[in-house]
């Protein structure tokens, strides 16, 4: 049978390439990125809590928080924030840097079995994460 219909994946790939070229930053995407960063911070908090309670081993917890800190730093340098007003963008950048630093410190606290330190960092990370998700972004075009 001669199949002249383009197979579905091929069509998909064409669409994919076509759409990849029009990925410009928008407030909508910035709001998504803000939520993702807040989610990463919340995950680091949860990992540290699991470690503290003895559920998760230190090797995993430190690796995971380390990765999450790296991802927060990466979010700080993402181009998506350029779609926001300068004051909002500045607030988000400041928040992301604090979160990134705290998560990195959390990583080393877990590494050094510093439980009181880890608990302090966890609380602050949790609070700062909530502050980040509270930064208002106007997504109405």
């Amino acid at each position: 049978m001669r199949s002249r219909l383009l197979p579905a994946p091929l069509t998909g790939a064409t669409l994919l390439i076509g759409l990849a070229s029009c990925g410009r930053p928008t407030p909508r995407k910035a709001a998504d990125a803000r939520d993702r960063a807040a989610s990463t911070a919340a995950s680091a908090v949860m990992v540290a809590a699991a470690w503290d309670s003895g559920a998760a081993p230190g090797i995993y917890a430190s690796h995971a928080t380390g990765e999450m800190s790296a991802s927060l730093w990466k979010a700080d340098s993402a181009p998506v924030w350029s779609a926001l007003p300068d004051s909002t963008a500045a607030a988000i950048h400041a928040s992301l840097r604090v979160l990134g630093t705290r998560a990195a410190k959390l990583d080393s606290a877990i590494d050094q079995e510093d439980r009181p330190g880890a608990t302090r960092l966890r609380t602050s990370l949790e609070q700062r994460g909530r502050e980040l998700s509270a930064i208002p972004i106007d997504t109405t075009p």
Partner: protein
Amino acid sequence: MSRLIEIALGIVTGIGGFLEAGSLATAAQAGAGFRFELIWAVILGATCLAFLVEMCGRLSAISKHTVPDALRERFGFRFFMVPLVVMQLVMLMVLATELGGVALALQMISGVSYRWWSVPVGLLSWALLWKGTFGLIEKGVSVLGLVTLAFVVGALHLHPPFGEVARGALPRLPAHDGAQYWFLAVSILGASISPYLFFFYSAGAVEDRWDVSHLAINRITAGAGMGFGGIVAVGALVLAGMVFHPAGIKVDSYQQLPLLLTSALGHWGFVLFVASLGIACFGAAQEIAVTSAYLMAQGFGWRWSENLPPAEDARFSLSYTAMTAVACLPVLAGVDVLKLTNISMVVSAASLPVVVLPLLVIMNDRRYLRDYCNGWVANTAVTAIVLLAGVLAVVSFPLLIAGGG
């Protein structure tokens, strides 16, 4: 008596073999993003898979031919090249995600980056295929795969609101984030209705020398195995809905996933999670590698059997060798395994019509199935679901870009 054992083993295989990197990750993402709203997609996927797997078993039991055999024989070589190329690419991507899943499980307990685990994991998987038999892969790894039932135990442990869970079994339109919702629905369908399972299952029926007397077993194992298997994925989804959703956590890394079970089961939860991820992905990796070899051998008429020593089916054995080796590369290069998982699941769903629609033609061919052809219910239902999955998948490529995965 031996038939009972066969049925039990078949069901165990279904349960143990259902969960793999894709179904686990997509279920967790769905639960985190939409609580219980996407349970229907898991159920729809598992049901459709049960129908399709039953068909593949029936085809092989009656005709002694596998799905790739029939695709080549009935549609000719030129047409066969389409599913062959599409499926090998899809399987390569999925195989890489499974190897990545095993490597990530090892990273979680060793602290050594998953990249460096890719080669040892690939080698071990290859060595088991090289020296092992079909029964070892199918039964052995799947029995160990029962550890994934931990997700069901964990979910029950958290006492989920059953009314709300049950309401999730009915499809409804999303209240927010429509694009993400449909994207996840497609990913779940793609993860559940894995096309490699059709080929694996039909080759298995020939390896195990099934005949007409196996039709009942076939029906039971397909229905019960895939049904219970779906429950494992629902368990993971419910856990994510209870652990991640209230905390506003979106799943964008495998590193978050152990929290599903630590929240419910403490330290044992961590152990069970790592074991589940490692074993389920390892089993799936073996199945996919050997299936890619089945597809080549059956399409080209080579001698094949996972039960023969490699010297007696060199092309077949070297096919899975090459496939495993190539699939290690993206993991070794440090690709984001979760992103790869998401893309593979959508591509997998998009590829479904290419395989399933020709399969339906064959399932109505009396030369192959004599008096055991499909009824119209099976034909209509499967056509509808597969077209739906295919269309949604093609539509969701843009969502993949827009939603950032």
